[in-house]
């Protein structure tokens, strides 16, 4: 019950944030667009005509249409949805440690790791609700209109949420360690994205990798495996939408391990701290 209370409280707190209200409003707008503006007449299985309001268009490949629209939504959501969610939830952990308030929470018969898990999953759940509101909504509308049920698009909602969850795990750690919202964002979002970009360039672009000395080849590869691979998760999201097979699942699970380790560190650090 304590865990549930903490999650509920975090969701309640987030719902009052302007960022999330904006996110939700934006998602609703896109859903309305897909619902009313796009008219599809199915001619044959997989072939149909689309009408954007009044203009009558030639027949198109519906599979292509559905996948392209969904790929655009997923890409926008990956970039801006995660950014907005990160900004909106960055202050949850620092704010929670407000002197005079954290004392009261800690005086309740709840262990400290449970408190951190509650705050963390509260944030992940509210972001998940926002992500799947848009992804699920677009998926339902397009599928119903065209008869093409692309489950890869639903899965892309999963990679988006996992990517956010990894960033949030690092923000949780930093929020406890520094109690600073700005530092949490800078390191968990800006620095991790930067590292991910640099490392993927060094290790995965053969022409660049060839230029490194043997030592740097080893160092870059080790770092590449250690850090979460945010850029490749973006690519994986696209692959899932397109319905292609994912070449390397280790990108996902090594990144998840990074997040889990940081969540563990967060619980450990929080358990030892004096307030």
């Amino acid at each position, binding site marked *: *019950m*304590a865990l*549930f*209370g*903490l999650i*509920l*409280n975090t969701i*309640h*707190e987030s719902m*009052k944030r302007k960022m999330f209200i904006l996110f939700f409003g934006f998602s609703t707008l896109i859903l309305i667009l897909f619902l009313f503006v796009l008219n599809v007449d199915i001619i044959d299985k997989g072939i149909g005509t689309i009408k954007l309001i009044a203009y009558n268009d030639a027949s198109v490949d519906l599979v292509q249409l559905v996948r392209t629209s969904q790929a655009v939504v997923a890409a926008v959501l990956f970039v801006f949805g995660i950014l907005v969610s990160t900004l909106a939830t960055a202050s949850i952990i620092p*704010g929670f440690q*407000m*002197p*005079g*308030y*954290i*004392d*009261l*929470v*800690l*005086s*309740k*018969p*709840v*262990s*400290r790791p449970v408190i951190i898990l509650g705050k963390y999953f509260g944030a992940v759940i509210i972001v998940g609700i926002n992500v799947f509101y848009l992804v699920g909504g677009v998926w339902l509308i397009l599928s119903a209109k065209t008869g093409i049920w692309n489950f890869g698009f639903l899965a892309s909602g999963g990679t988006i949420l996992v990517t956010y969850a990894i960033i949030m795990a690092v923000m949780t750690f930093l929020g406890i360690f520094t109690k600073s919202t700005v530092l949490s964002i800078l390191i968990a979002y800006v620095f991790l994205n930067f590292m991910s970009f640099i490392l993927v360039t060094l290790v995965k672009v053969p022409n660049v990798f060839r230029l490194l000395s043997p030592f740097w080849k080893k160092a870059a590869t080790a770092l590449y495996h250690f850090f979460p691979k945010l850029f490749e998760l973006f690519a994986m999201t696209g692959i899932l939408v397109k319905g292609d097979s994912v070449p390397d699942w280790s990108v996902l699970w090594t990144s998840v391990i990074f997040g889990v380790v940081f969540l563990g560190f967060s619980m450990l650090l929080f358990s*030892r701290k*004096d*307030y």
Partner: protein
Amino acid sequence: MKIIEAKSISKTYLCGIFSRKKVQALKSVSLNVNKGEIFGLLGPNGAGKTTFVKILLGIVKAGKGEASLFDVPVSSSASRIRVGYLSENHRYPSFMTAKSLLHFMGRLSGIEKSLRTQRIGKLLKDVGLADVLDMEVGKFSKGMLQRLGVAQALLSDPDLIVLDEPTGGVDPVGRKEIRDILLNLKSQGKTMFLNSHLLSEVEMICDRVAILNKGKLLKVGSVRDLTRHTQEYRIELRDPLNNYKEVLGSKAETLDSDNRCFRIHIGKIDELDKIIDELRKMKIGIDAVIPEKSSLEDMFIETLKGN
């Protein structure tokens, strides 16, 4: 069973960049509180009162020593099941309302929904916040926040209530109301531990007090024992006594103009009996024999000076 048991608690805070500065907040403090007591921890600013209470509640980790509540070590969250706490400068996220805050706190304490709803309704009425239960706490006045704090501390129907400066920032009427709530809780057999520097207040409600200064425990005892000067009595007579030095001893002083009220100094308690016998032999009526007490404040200042 001891409700609170603390054995040689020490705490050193490390602060500054790279933890280079050390502040020793508590030096080997041992203290027990029994069931049904109202215990007051007194001390000047920075004495370590808040640190002690935070260690009892697991908010701060003790450096050395052991503490337990209800015989459960404070390192276990189970030690806090029967405890209610009101912190010194308690604050709440401004997005919460009185009601949502209490529901959240109640969930943390594991109180079932129906019981929670019933208790919250009653408590908000008891502390006089029933009309503002849906107002955001960001808009509360200081006194309202203090009442909310009290409600929050009592929500789990705790057997031990720990209050750090419970009447801070509250006007005299509000202070009296809080005092009445505490006395009412005492009559229900609850144990209370409070930190305060409002000595007159402590004197009114505490059974036992301890004095802490610079992290060291200087005195522990009942308010009566600590404030009584055993050698001084005040005697009030119905008839005047003019040759009082002969009967009451050479150190006796008269306190009024018609020689009916005196302060006497005695060595042993049977000297008092002898004086009373003598007065009765002289057929002088005795209205009162009162042991002279200094106020808690005098005792407090003396103790700190002596240290």
